[in-house]
């Protein structure tokens, strides 16, 4: 089965290849069992993924997994891309970009961006993806609607997961669970962050992979039981963490 994946850091393990845990990542597991073309790029926004999507021959793929990231993230024009820094800019958030580039994105949002039109085009883009692919598509939201407060009139019915099961919400839940339940040194240093791949622990990757694999076999998709799964199964690589801290 041929699978294409579009999205952001929740599907792009390239920045984590130096970690042993990269093999736990859901997309890595997917690659072991299927023929996967992964077009996801860390830090990218919806329009980058949509543009990449529009430029593929989608007939080549049996199933497509599309992770919908932040529509405000911007791609720098090729003429100005510096290979040492990310070509994707998240206005008000991304560090490392030259000041004039960051300032240009922030000024645009402050003075010109129109929330209603952004919501309108977001709806049209997601509707187009859905209409193009039908049931070949698994459309996952990365962020909950509360994260996109500027998407005033964005529709929610395109997705296969909801606000509670948005990938970022799951990552946040993991963080709070680790905070409450793991030993102090780990909590305080926040070093466990360095042992996550694509913002998730190996335990949650196994959960997500199982769910996606289930969907690929023709079954329903749902991430609803992630809380119970994490509570029951979450393990951190504490030995490695200790050596990292020390």
């Amino acid at each position: 089965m041929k699978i294409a994946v579009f999205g952001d850091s929740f599907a792009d393990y390239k920045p984590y290849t130096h970690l042993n845990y990269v093999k736990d990542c859901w997309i890595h597991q997917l690659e072991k069992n299927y023929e996967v073309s992964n077009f996801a790029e860390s830090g990218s926004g919806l329009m980058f993924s949509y543009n990449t999507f529009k430029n593929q021959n989608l007939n080549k793929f049996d199933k497509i997994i599309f992770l919908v990231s932040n529509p405000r993230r911007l791609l720098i024009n090729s003429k100005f891309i510096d290979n040492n820094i990310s070509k994707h800019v998240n206005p008000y958030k991304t560090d490392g970009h030259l000041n004039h580039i960051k300032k240009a994105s922030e000024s645009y949002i402050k003075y010109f961006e129109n929330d209603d039109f952004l919501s309108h085009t977001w709806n049209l883009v997601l509707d187009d993806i859905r209409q193009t692919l039908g049931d070949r598509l698994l459309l996952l939201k990365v962020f909950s609607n509360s994260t996109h407060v500027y998407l005033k009139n964005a529709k929610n019915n395109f997705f296969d997961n909801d606000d509670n099961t948005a990938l970022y919400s799951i990552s946040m839940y993991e963080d709070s669970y680790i905070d409450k339940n793991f030993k102090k040194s780990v909590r305080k240093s926040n070093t466990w962050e360095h042992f996550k791949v694509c913002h998730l622990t190996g335990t949650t990757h196994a959960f997500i992979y199982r769910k996606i694999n289930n969907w690929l076999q023709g079954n329903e998709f749902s991430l609803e039981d992630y809380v119970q799964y994490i509570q029951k199964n979450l393990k951190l690589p504490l030995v490695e963490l200790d050596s990292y801290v020390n």
Partner: protein
Amino acid sequence: MKKLKILILGDSFADTSNRTYLPFVNKSWPVKLQKNYDVDNFAEAGSGLLHSVEMINRFIKIEDYDKIIFCASQFIRQRLNEATFNQAKQQIGYKHFSVTFNEKNTKYDETDRKIQQNNARIKYGRLLRNFTKYFYIDHDSKYLNYLVLKDIKERLGDKLLLLKCFDDIGKYAKQFSYDHIVDNKIALWKICEHERRIAPELLDAFKVCHLVSEHHDMLYEKIVSWIETGNFSLTKEDVITDLEHTYKDTLEWKEFIKKHPKFS
């Protein structure tokens, strides 16, 4: 009998409000339509596609109208957001900004000369130009432009006359051509260009909606025919080609000569 209710949306090709000082404004197609129909004209000169789409999404009850004439302007034209515009209305005067993307030499030019009229416009014009310089991705806007026009067409159906003001150009124009969505084969801008070739001295300031009265007559006839029969066609064959022999008889020319006698 109750008059049909007509809604007009678009940019300067349908906005007559900034040309009311011209005596022949009454010969323009949007004003002529008012004689026989109940017309609401929300077109704004300099506005982009975003502005017109937002009008039907937020402010206008489209079900109140029998027919809608939508002059689709450029996607790239931007508008200051409400908060910014409301705060600095006095200084800015005019909320729309235009930036043209020149694909060949990757230069970004402000085409809206009004940007240079005051400091506030210069400031915001510069901010927009910087944004397009670093981030404007031509193919993204082509995808979105196409999706927006397709959506308008699907939502408004037979009620809609969708006229393209400009032809799409550039590398991605073919891939995302909207020619099959719009109702005119020749863009309104092309008609204006034709006039400019024939009479370059006859400035836009002496025309209404960039066109001389003879072209307004032609458009008016076609639009009325569409309202009454549902049929519309506007091709390059409709452009008045012998204007070079007749334009000196036009009201626009006479007005122009009054102001600039050296051309007579």
